[in-house]
């Protein structure tokens, strides 16, 4: 399932609904991405991020995420998948994204969950602008994200 929304979500409630009553599921892997309070990779070097705003492309976002989800089901024997992604203004510590995959086997759950977030990061049309004391700055795409997604090319 795909959900794009400005409001926060309750990971516990999502997880409970995701795993309930499936006696063929052996494992659930879940990833939550959060807003950090500094720019870039180095907390010492990066300016303090006071908030960020996530813009997206309504319509294409759903279309791309559904394609990513379908690809995960094609590659692994999954019971279920879930992607929730927020947009709008977010402050440090807030949840941005949740991805989850369940399967009879833990390797499939782990692999699919990581695949979902890796592909989402390079294919889903979201853009972050960070608000710092020095002004607003669009976040640059990271080579490490391209490399992470490229792991799954085949």
């Amino acid at each position: 399932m795909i959900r794009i929304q400005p409001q926060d979500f309750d990971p516990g409630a999502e997880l409970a609904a995701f795993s309930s009553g499936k006696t063929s599921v052996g494992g659930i892997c879940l990833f939550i991405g959060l807003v950090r309070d500094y720019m870039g990779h180095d907390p010492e070097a990066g300016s303090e991020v006071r908030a960020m705003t996530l813009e997206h492309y309504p319509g294409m976002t759903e279309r791309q995420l559904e394609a990513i989800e379908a690809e995960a089901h094609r590659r692994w024997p999954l019971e279920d998948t879930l992607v929730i992604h927020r947009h709008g203004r977010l402050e440090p510590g807030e949840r941005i994204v949740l991805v989850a995959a369940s399967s009879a086997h833990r390797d499939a759950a782990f692999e699919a969950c990581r695949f979902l977030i890796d592909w989402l990061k390079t294919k889903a049309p979201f853009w972050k602008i960070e608000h710092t004391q020095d002004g607003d700055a669009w976040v640059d795409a990271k080579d490490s994200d391209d490399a992470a997604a490229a792991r799954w090319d085949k």
Partner: protein
Amino acid sequence: MKVLYFAWLKAKTGVGEETVTAPPGIDTVGRLIEHLKTLSPGHAAAFETLSVVRVAVNQDYGGLDTPVKAGDEVAFFPPVTGG
């Protein structure tokens, strides 16, 4: 056709969405970009460095050679940074 701009391309062009009636012969993304660059200095600036511009035609990723025609939805944006 409908042309959309996101993130800093929206800031540079000054528009989020515009309806463009392309002259005859505008049948690929690359040719459409050449036309769009003539619309305003902001448009020209937005398309100055194409290596950092991504395009989607009817909500699927494309490239400079992707065909476009009247009625299409064409979106321009920087590399994505969600998640």
